[in-house]
């Protein structure tokens, strides 16, 4: 699914949907994220890689407005996370590491509730919920209670709540964890569809994962973070041109090697 150089250029030409500028997060003496800056353009699917504890989840929590950074700023769909937090949060769909679910609610009533929280106009609510159910393969379980669903279905419910209000920006923290291979490929297809311009608009997706093949399958660009610092921000095609395998790059990054490749990080 990695698009050609042409389409990637056109995506970048569009206004940038996520603009992270010098984001740092410190807890006392501990630095979780240090001076991270990057852009995600319209319709771009960006893979966010890094070893466990590298700061992926912290970065994603900052971008979704869950926690404020210690330093730096971020814009989501043109809205600053600090000066217009409600507009910025309205523009994000977020699937946290563990999918947020109310076990006692039915799938459908949960999605209706989320669509209300996300300010989806009443007139569009039913249609949007139906669409999210269908896209995540939940239509046949929509009246079941979430707590009784399997882990894979709960993960899909989590994904459905992230996309139900059709936000311009999606932040997905390990979206395919706990799914079987068929479900994984369905979800990958879904994410690729979300980014396509057209009926659903080119949504910008940033997704974290530990599966490198997943990044190669659906992402055009990859960000690698290690010990809180962004060490790589490159197009997959650029990696391929230089004859680098993602796996090698990742291993080197995880070992703390600085990687001179692609765009300069932090620019």
């Amino acid at each position: 699914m990695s698009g050609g150089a042409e389409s990637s250029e056109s995506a970048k030409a569009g206004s940038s949907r996520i603009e992270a500028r010098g984001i740092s997060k410190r807890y006392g003496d501990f630095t979780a994220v240090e001076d991270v800056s990057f852009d995600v353009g319209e319709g771009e699917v960006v893979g966010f890689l890094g070893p466990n504890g590298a700061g992926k989840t912290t970065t994603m929590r900052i971008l979704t407005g869950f926690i404020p950074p210690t330093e730096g700023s971020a814009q989501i769909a043109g809205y600053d996370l600090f000066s217009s937090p409600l507009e910025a949060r309205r523009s994000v769909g977020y699937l946290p590491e563990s999918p947020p679910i109310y076990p006692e609610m039915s799938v459908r009533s949960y999605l209706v509730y989320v669509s209300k929280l996300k300010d989806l106009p009443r007139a569009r609510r039913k249609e949007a919920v139906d669409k999210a159910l269908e896209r995540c393969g939940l239509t046949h379980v929509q009246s079941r209670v979430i707590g009784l669903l399997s882990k894979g279905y709960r993960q899909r419910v989590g994904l459905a709540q992230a996309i139900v209000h059709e936000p311009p920006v999606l932040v997905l923290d390990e979206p395919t964890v706990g799914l079987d291979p068929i479900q994984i490929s369905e979800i990958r297809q879904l994410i690729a569809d979300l980014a396509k311009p057209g009926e659903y608009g080119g949504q910008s997706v940033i997704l974290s994962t530990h599966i490198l093949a997943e990044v190669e399958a659906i992402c055009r660009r990859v960000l690698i973070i290690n010990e809180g610092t962004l060490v790589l921000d490159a197009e997959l095609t650029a990696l391929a041109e230089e004859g680098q395998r993602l796996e090698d790059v990742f291993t080197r990054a995880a070992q703390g090697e600085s990687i001179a490749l692609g765009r300069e990080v932090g620019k």
Partner: protein
Amino acid sequence: MRHITSIAGRELSSLFVSPVAYVTLTLFALLAGFFFLAGVLSFDAQVAEAQSLQYTDYLEKINLNDAVLGPFFGVMWIVLLFLIPGITMGLFASEKVNGTQELLLTSPITIWELVLGKYIAGAVFSACLVLVAAFFTGILFLYGDPEFWRTISGLLGLLLLSWSYVAVGAFASSVTRNQLIAFFLALVLLLILWMLAVVADLGAAGGTIGADSNLSEVMRFLSASDRFEKMVRGLVDTRDLAYFAFMIGVFLVFTKTSVESARWR
């Protein structure tokens, strides 16, 4: 505003599919029924005894409000003190366990909308409990003639107490992710509030604090017991209404601060 009703509506519907709501309602109805029946039977016995002994003075003075409803409301107060933490323990703690706190805090809603939505859900549920108590007092009107406005005033006192307890319980639930801890924290806070008047009186009597000292003044202000007793006697004072509004407001501000602090951890 729409967010507040959405949040309150979801919370209430979740409460009513959970066993907690039914256990609480059943327990409350059973206890209310038991104490109401006990009150009525003892009133009946007193009247019969007074009649057989021809105590006309006593028969003149005795009435349903003082002899049945007063003690009944007093006991219901204590029952609410133990049951309301059970309703409120999950308000915020369960969101943390479900991971839905991340959904709420990344949604375009304000913390106040979240806190008020949760509070209203708890307040509506506790109003259901007070309705159960009102049902029993209503029975008295079928067979006797208690004073109507005095009874309403007592029920209003019960309602306002329960609403201030919901605010305390909401705060307790917002500081932890463990519902059991939330329950006991709320119970301890409510018991402390309950005992303030007693402690203030003790201090006055023992002379350690002194009846006129600022501390016992403050403790008496914070205590609900004098105010509740006034309302049971049928005295609705704006100062007492303001007290309940004050307690609710203070604990909701605490709750808001506590929920917001999740962002800084």
